[in-house]
């Protein structure tokens, strides 16, 4: 059973969580162009690597951020939005270009 750590509720089985997709900064809807907005809605950096993602603990209704390697499926950190631990840099280490199989 795969486990994930919810910042509010502790370590729980993955079945208690929902994946909310990659975290992206929202452009200002009032000033962004149509293309910028469409890019925000649809286009993403979808290559494998360490990503910031939204996750949701459904029994408690908690949304939080997970930093996860989408190639190896290792979770590096989880925290509430805006409460990133200091150690976590915002730079994204690129995953090694190795085969996943």
């Amino acid at each position, binding site marked *: *059973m*795969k486990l994930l750590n919810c910042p509010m509720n502790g370590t729980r089985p993955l*079945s208690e969580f*929902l*994946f909310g*997709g*990659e975290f992206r900064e929202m452009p200002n809807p009032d000033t962004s162009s*149509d*293309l910028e907005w*469409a*890019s925000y*809605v*649809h*286009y*993403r*950096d*979808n*290559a*494998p690597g360490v*990503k910031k*993602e939204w996750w949701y603990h459904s029994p408690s209704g908690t949304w939080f951020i997970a930093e996860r390697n*989408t*190639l*190896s*499926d290792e979770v590096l950190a989880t925290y509430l939005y805006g409460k990133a631990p200091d150690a976590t840099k915002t730079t994204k280490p690129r995953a090694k*270009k190795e085969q*996943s*199989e």
Partner: protein
Amino acid sequence: MAYQLLKFALGGEYKEPRFFRDCQTPKKSYDAVIIGGGGHGLAAAYYLAKDHGITNVAVLEKGYIGGGNTGRNTTIVRSNYLTPDGVNFYDASVKLFEGLSTELDINLFYSNRGHFTLAHTESAMRTMRWRAEVNKHVGVESRVVGTDEIAKACPQMDLSCSGKAPIQGALYHEPGSIARHDAVAWGYARGADSMGVEIFQNTEVQSIDVKDGQVQGVHTSRGYISTGKVLSAVAGFTPRITEMVDLKTPIVIHPLQACVSEPMKPWLDTILVSGSLHVYVSQSSRGELVMGSSLDPYEVHSTRSTFDFVEGLTSHIVDMFPFLSNVKVVRQWAGMADITPDFAPIMGKTPIKGFYLDAGWGTWGFKATPISGKTMAYTMANDKAHDLIHSFRLSRFEEYELTGEKGAASVGH
């Protein structure tokens, strides 16, 4: 026949002819390079040569041909989609599939079974009626049937699904079929090779050279190849290729898993899909039950498989067929599905000149192998998208013209 077999057996030398040449050293340049030796890449190469006379083509495959999703899918071929554009496109593919064994001179074990999408709720019935009307409108055989017809086609099924989700009816699609997936790759490979296309296995594309918005060539594990036209047909690896040319797409990779049971005597004629129970099943020509489910719930670029999957899947299969509770699962595996927000593919030209994309095939691309090959070959040869794939263009997302196929593709692949 018997005599030939005997002669062959006593002949002492059993060397099978190769399906295609064992190419090792690529030329310096090709008219077109295809990344990915799955069904889609090989079919595109075949139709480039056959329909457009373009034979100076290299197919580069980093593993072995058909080793990607082409050899991992559950081989369902159908055209009962939800949007008219989708139905027309997949219908053209089904028609090509029907004549493909003859055209490629290889037995694809193409087996027409009939395809039931079971509805367990009134709202599911509504979607079935909707799909049936769209299908009929464009001339595809689909109709809503009641439980009596389902019981007749599959008397072994518990129509109440162990009391948990009684079946109300189904969408029946007569052309629904299954086939031998790797043979499709091998058949196209042989056909393309015989017309001059060169297929390189164990050859990985590592980067793509673009200058002034125009493709110049590709760097591979066997050296640099210059070319003005590159097709990316790499399914679950698409984000790694689009990253090489700095192209962003809405594709997200989720594993999709499947498994087979031990072989049994033939008892299941039809293909059954249940959206509510998240399972589908058919019986292969080997007698194994081929079973699958919906996507894994989150993004992973890996072909790992999980126990959660078999556990969930088999409990629902047993709801439908209680007598299977003692049957063993003998193999389980996963592929990386390239999922789009509207469950329709992304095909055609891109903002980079000479870079063509055949992707977003997610859980539904096996059935499209022939038609995607044909339409992508046309698109590359003419540098102009084929009419059938217009609504699958990459720019549809920024134009907010999505092609909503989710209702017809999320569980039934």
